[in-house]
């Protein structure tokens, strides 16, 4: 029987990134994927004829450009298009737009508050400073603070030096920033509800926290540290939907000699004498490999794929304590024609951006209170966009694909599993909110896919449907991610590695966990890493 050099469980973007790097380093790599397609949460699927759905993740920014370059993704079809600003609709019949042009942005804010309009530069400066502090950490393995190994001490010193390089004012802000709520942080800059709501949304997307929860300022940063071709903080669409990212990765992987098996669900990881030897598929087929890399989240990997007896108690306890909380859902809609928003002029660039209807931090927080009570939000927060206004490949001319990311949706409804009726109720809360701002919206709907945490977990395999494979709170960041003592992509089982978003630096279509894991694996194998370009400078 053939023994692969490495078997990657899960063909999500991080699994594929990892596989690509390993294959290019000369390993013979197999990716096994349970679905009939690869992509994980970064897919484009034709769920109704003529429409491509980015049915899970829907926008691109965080994906590391170093990876795109190393893996020649443009050659395999990846192209990211910046989108144009966006808006928050207000309940008084107006909207607050975000324009890409600095002065238009200021004038737009000045419609609501001259003070806030002029406060924006200082806010942007402070957030940029924080991003610049974090960004270089994305593509580094977090140090183990309890270790005395030269490497860990070196990394700790690197962190220390980076911190010491800040001015005292910046240090103070950094310390506060990491523990503040986005709501409190914004209060220090702005006075207008809708302007605060406009920024606060980046502090909650993907988390099971409300904008008033400490720590959400950091979550905002997580959404700000991406880029589109050097334009830091910008967001874009992958041409052809988010599947274009994983399609390019898969093609790059195969072009370099890698093998992908779809429809191959892993039942468990074979472990002998404390070392991973391969995987066993659901049908019983055994595939042997010298090492195994799991793209699945840490709970799925160690509570479902590895036998308990192979793992130390303290590790198991920590894995069980890892917080993966479903907090969001998705409604994907095929539209017969472009919806109209009477408040929005027809020539507004906002149609080509992200749209929101939650015009105050309080509404956002109340939506979170529903989640805490085990219900989906009666007045949900939507991150809605129509990628087809920019990307002609996703639907035929005149037809549109609309993606609605919805918060909050609990992993269980009142402590029990989601039912189809719940799902319909959840969808209705979304559609009725849109219809409030867009008369005739319902009539344009050709097809709709509703994904509660139940559907996301079932299809993509994300525990509780959590898009980040684990909450981005301090207890689960850096050397605590996914669990203390195993934050360096290795696990207690020899030859079994983690490369998913459960690991540092966390979720989003970033690819950094996949690459960082490859770095560690190649280090263990003493393989050269010349095909891995250094992280881009932050100057």
């Amino acid at each position, binding site marked *: 029987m053939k023994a692969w050099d490495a078997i990657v469980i899960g063909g999500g973007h991080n699994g594929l990134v990892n596989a690509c790097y390993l294959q290019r380093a000369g390993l013979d790599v197999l990716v096994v994927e349970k679905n009939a397609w690869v992509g994980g949460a970064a897919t484009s699927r034709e769920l109704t004829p003529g429409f491509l759905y980015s049915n899970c993740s829907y926008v691109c920014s965080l994906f590391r450009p170093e990876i795109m370059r190393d893996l020649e993704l443009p050659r395999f079809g990846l192209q990211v298009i910046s989108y144009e600003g966006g808006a928050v609709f207000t309940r008084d019949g107006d909207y607050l737009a975000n324009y890409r042009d600095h002065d238009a942005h200021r004038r737009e804010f000045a419609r609501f508050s001259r003070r806030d309009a002029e406060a924006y530069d200082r806010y942007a400066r402070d957030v940029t400073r924080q991003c610049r502090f974090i960004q270089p950490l994305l593509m580094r393995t977090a140090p183990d603070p309890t270790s005395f190994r030269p490497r860990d001490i070196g990394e700790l010193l690197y962190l220390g030096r980076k911190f010491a390089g800040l001015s*005292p004012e910046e240090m103070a802000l950094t310390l506060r920033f990491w*523990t503040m709520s986005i709501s409190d942080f914004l209060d220090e800059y702005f006075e207008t509800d809708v302007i605060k709501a406009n920024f606060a949304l980046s502090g909650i997307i993907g988390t099971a926290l409300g904008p008033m929860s*400490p720590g959400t300022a950091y979550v905002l940063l997580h959404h700000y540290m991406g880029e589109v071709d050097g334009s830091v903080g910008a967001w874009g669409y992958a041409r052809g939907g988010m599947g274009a990212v994983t399609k390019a990765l898969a093609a790059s992987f195969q072009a370099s000699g890698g093998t992908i098996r779809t429809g191959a669900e892993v039942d468990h990881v074979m472990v002998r004498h404390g070392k991973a030897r391969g995987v066993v598929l659901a049908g019983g087929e055994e595939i042997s490999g010298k090492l195994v890399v799991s793209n699945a989240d840490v709970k799925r990997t160690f509570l479902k794929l590895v036998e308990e007896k192979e793992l130390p108690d303290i590790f198991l306890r920590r894995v069980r304590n890892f917080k993966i909380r479903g907090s969001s859902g998705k409604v994907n809609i095929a539209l017969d024609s472009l919806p109209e928003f009477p408040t929005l002029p027809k020539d507004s660039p906002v149609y080509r951006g992200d749209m929101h209807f939650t015009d105050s931090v309080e509404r956002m927080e109340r939506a979170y209170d529903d989640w805490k009570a085990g219900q989906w939000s009666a007045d949900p927060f939507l991150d809605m966009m129509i990628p087809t206004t920019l990307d002609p490949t996703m639907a035929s001319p005149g037809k549109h694909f609309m993606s609605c990311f919805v918060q909050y949706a609990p992993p269980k409804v009142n402590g029990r599993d989601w039912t189809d009726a719940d799902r319909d109720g959840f969808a209705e809360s979304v559609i009725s909110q849109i219809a409030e701002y867009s008369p005739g919206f319902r009539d344009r709907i050709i097809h709709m896919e509703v994904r509660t945490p139940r559907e996301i977990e079932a299809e993509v395999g994300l525990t509780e449907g959590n898009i980040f494979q684990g909450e981005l709170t301090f207890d689960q960041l850096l050397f605590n991610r996914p669990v*203390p003592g195993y934050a360096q992509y290795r696990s207690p089982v020899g030859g079994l590695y983690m490369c998913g978003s459960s690991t540092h630096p966390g979720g989003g279509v970033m690819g950094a966990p996949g690459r960082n894991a490859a770095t560690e694996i190649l280090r263990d194998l003493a393989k050269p890493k010349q095909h891995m370009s250094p992280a881009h400078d932050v100057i």
Partner: protein
Amino acid sequence: MMSFDAIVIGGGHNGLVSAAVLAKNGRKVLVLEAADDIGGAARTEAFAPGFRVSSIAHVLNRLHPDVVKALELERHGLDIARGDFVPSVALSKDGPPLILHGAYGEVLTGASSSEQTAWKGLRAQLLRYAGILKPLLARRPPDLGGMSLLETASLGQTALALKRLGKEDMRDFLRVLLMNVADLLDEQLTDDRLKGLLAFDATLGSHLGPRSPTSLLGLYYRLAGETGGAAGAQTLPKGGMGAVISAIRAAAERAGVAIRTSTPVARIIVAKGRAVGVALDSGEEIRAKTIVSAINTATTFFDLVGPREIDTGFVRKVGNIRMKGDAAKLHLALDRPPQFAGVDAADHKGRLVIAPSPDHVEHAFNPSKYGAFSPEPVMEITLPSLADPSLAPDGACVLSAVVQYAPYALRERWSEGKPKFLEAIMTQLETYAPGIGKTVRHAELLTPADIEARYRMPGGHWHHGELQADQMLMSRPVSGWSGYDTPVEGLFLAGAGSHPGGGVSGAPGLNAARRIIAMRG
């Protein structure tokens, strides 16, 4: 005319501690108190004919040992014996209570044996971790602008203490440090009563719910305090909190501190960036080389110094300190002692907590985010007259309770909301102590707005600023100025708004005095 080296504004416990320590170090010190009595929020006051109560702080659980020692408080009438430790009783609506005896539950009763084992482990862990943070209480926060060798060395000690925990323990410490309390409790405990009590304690006095990240710090803060040498222990001082103040006052006066009450300060006189004295409401001016403000940070700078004398960035920082209180104080004059269901006589002398579960506390917290009070509030109740009959007429009883959540900025305004909130509290009390309502002779409810007005505590916040991670240590009261000195030379802060924060600890006052002495002020 008498001349003074230092003037302390505010005769609360921190002001008095600061004054006493300065005086013991050879300074001539004058304390100016606006009210007609000293003690600030640590007074014992009459609230109904024949009834007296610790009017804000009512449980002594964190008076710092260095303060006790420096002021020789035991020689001045402070007497804390181990036997005085009172239990914490987690009340239950539909069953027997759960009780933490001794110093924060050395013994746990009313819980299953497996829960007792779990608690033993968790308690030890919490105390161990709080112990790491404890030394930080009695010293200046690290200075980010460049630390002296001494400071670096003492921080190094904290790092070393951390390393001494052992690898796995240290990892857990670093993981849970900024966690929310509810998650940690869910990880280790199962009994809702116990979890509710701990969730309540972690969030008491702050604008956080148990599910808010960082809320565990509140529990650490409590457990970093000690009483009678035991971490987490609590007592109800005989004579109320005012008795503690009397001891501090005696120590201060013995050291030569002069105290003037009913003497509000109108402003701090600043000349060329230096504080040189104070002007009283009466117009009188008193000069001194060192001015110590033991009152609220914002009041100090906005009202007494005035924004004209300080920089705009600093004005912003002070203005950004979050200090809107969520805790109300209830005083009931009762005809007779109440009977809380399932609680025996001895435990009635303890701290009775209504916080049935972390979720309940969280739900109580929700409305406060939007300026509404909790319809089903959580609270800690003491019946101080049971152990100290001098506080109430014969046979009668005093009930003192801290109740959450009562947001300072109530949207419907407290003039409207107060009667409704009192009703909500009484409904809760009636559930746990049936019949109590009929025995109420007099009720006094102090909302944060009342506390603000009566005790000159802006926002009615007893910490003079939210005690949350971003307002702690180097960020307390504001970043860049966490070491008790201020941008105004010769002016120092010594109140709860400064590190480490509120509660009757005396630590801010002590640390400030030490700083002044080190700076030869």
